């Protein structure tokens, strides 16, 4: 009874308000919405402008190396003078490329596997909740802490003597450290993607007699694949750009001697460097030798292209899975 009175009361007020709205009020609210749209457009424009200025200035600074001696620059090594013909980023490319490969090979199967277990198999109890909370916390731990972990376990071999396998300060140590760093991110994004799979899909599969594994393999994973790939894509981009943990794991920032071929796997246990470190190092050296500013800018362009290639491969894969799901 009371609710019906309230109902009719609110109905009345609403209809009265609508009737009362004059033309002036309509116009005012139209202004308001235009105003808001302009502000939002300005926000987007400013973001794009900042990005554009950054990209253009980096590219202009780096033109000396990018346009006139790209081949030499990509094949060259770290040198102490910016005018050196052999100056280049080959060693850094080797380091960054293999770090990405190691992260992909180690972190993705582990992380996606853990996510499938957490979402599909794990019982819903306090212990599972506790683990999930901890994984979320791990994703927020500063990267330097992972660097310290890598230093203790992989470089110094303090507990299991792992330095005998990794070779101490090496590409392998760096890749494994970054794999651990991105693992929580992979687990979180993959489990979010699996959570988003509609339950009706699972029930239908069970209904026609599929086993649990068949349901996961044929229904859940293909449906969740685009989301899982987005997560892995984010984590690879993060791994390519990390600097702090690499410094701790002993990346060389001065001059690196060995210059292995891009796919020479025996050099994985050798001393290494990576693109972000070379950029940092050359920027610092520009105090002594101004020409390094251009070299650093060119290295940034190379790093951007690497990130772009990695991203487009992942986006291509994602589109393919999305079409399948279609």
């Amino acid at each position, binding site marked *: 009874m009371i609710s019906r009175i309230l109902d009719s009361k609110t109905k009345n007020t609403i209809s009265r308000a609508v009737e009362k709205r004059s033309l002036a009020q309509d116009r005012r609210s139209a202004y308001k919405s235009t105003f808001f749209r302009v502000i939002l457009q300005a926000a987007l424009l400013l973001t794009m402008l900042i990005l554009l200025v950054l990209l253009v200035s980096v590219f202009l600074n780096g033109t000396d190396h990018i346009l006139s001696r790209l081949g030499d620059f990509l094949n060259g090594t770290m040198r*102490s*003078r910016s005018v050196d013909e052999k100056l280049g980023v080959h060693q850094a490319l080797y380091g960054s490329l293999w770090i990405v490969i190691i992260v992909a090979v180690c972190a993705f199967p582990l992380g996606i596997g853990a996510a499938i277990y957490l979402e599909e198999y794990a019982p819903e109890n306090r212990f599972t909740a506790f683990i999930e909370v901890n994984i979320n916390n791990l994703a927020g731990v500063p990267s330097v802490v992972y660097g310290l972990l890598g230093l203790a376990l992989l470089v110094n071999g303090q507990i299991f003597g792992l330095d005998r396998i990794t070779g101490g300060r090496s590409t392998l140590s760096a890749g494994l450290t970054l794999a651990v760093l991105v693992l929580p991110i992979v687990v979180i994004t993959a489990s979010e993607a699996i959570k988003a799979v509609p339950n009706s899909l699972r029930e239908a599969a069970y209904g026609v007699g599929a086993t649990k594994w068949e349901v996961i393999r044929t229904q859940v994973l293909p449906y969740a694949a685009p989301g899982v790939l987005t997560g892995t894509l984010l984590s690879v981009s993060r791994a390519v750009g990390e600097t702090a943990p690499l410094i701790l794991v002993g990346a060389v920032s001065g001059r690196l001697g*060995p*210059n292995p071929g891009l796919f*020479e796997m025996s050099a994985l246990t050798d001393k290494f460097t990576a693109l972000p470190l070379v950029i940092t190092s050359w920027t610092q050296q520009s105090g002594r030798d101004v020409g390094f500013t251009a070299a650093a800018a060119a290295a940034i362009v190379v790093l951007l292209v690497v990130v772009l290639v990695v991203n487009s491969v992942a986006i291509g894969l994602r589109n393919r899975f999305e079409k399948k799901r279609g």
Partner: protein
Amino acid sequence: MRYSTRRLSPLTAILVSLVLLMAACNGDSDTDDTDDDNGGSAQSTDDTVGVGEVFISGSSTVEPISSLVADMLSDVNSDIEVTVDGPGTGDGFKLFCEGEADISDASRQIKASEKEACLENGINNIIELKVGIDGIAVMTGSDNTAVDCLTFEHLFDLIGPNGQGTKTWVEASSDLPDETLTIFGPGEESGTFDSFVEIVLEGLAEEAGVETTTRTDYNPSENDNVILRGIQSSTTSLGWLGFAFAVNAQDVKLLSIDGGEGCIAPTPETIASNEYPISRDLWIYVNADKAAANPAVAAYVDFYTTEGLAEATSEVGYVELTPEDQAQTQSRWQNRTTIG
């Protein structure tokens, strides 16, 4: 559907070819390994300088010299792979005493505690070699007659964090002239900035209980020529630069510095003799056992003590050793004179 799979097949093809390429290259590198092994055994029987790796760590001030020497050597002999890192003198000695680094770069002499750490790890044959001098010149405009000599205290008052906001010399330090003060110097990313802070400001800043850095309202530049033009532009300017660069500059006046033992003018002689207070010696420490076992280390230091001392030190902006000091460094290396 058929269209979509056909469109995406290049992607799969790329992935597959990448995997195949990796597998193929892995096979290659296996044969490389055996080649290396052969080279290694040939090396131990031969006297010839062969393939080898050298690892140097330590002071970021010395790093440019060691890197340039490595560059120069690699142009002559590309079989020697030299890695140089510059985490700092202390970190360098740590790696050196753990036996990881063959050579340690240092902007000061080794401490007794560091020597002990080396001894504990069985590294007791260390060769100490002086490779250059890092000197800093403090300058003003060439027509400035009011100032000839500054003490470390003056420099701390003028350039240290306490000088923040002062517009005239007298405002910063009471016994200096009442003239406009404009300061030019290298920016924070520069090694000369670090050296100046460490040699001049650090002790006084600790005493005064302030941050060990400069004031932030000076005119920093990463380009030595810009700093020089700034100092030339005003009679009562003040600035600092690496000595090797400053000594050739026109229209500036190099100030004498009083580090507690009277005013000393910066000249190559006073810097080489360590009389001029804003200077420090640069060293490399060689693990003699590693130099004996690894011909690449010996070849590198050979090159360092000859061509390196002659060209690299001055090329990267430090003061070259006097001929006598160069000869001393060379004889120390040739006789493998270790420190006690």
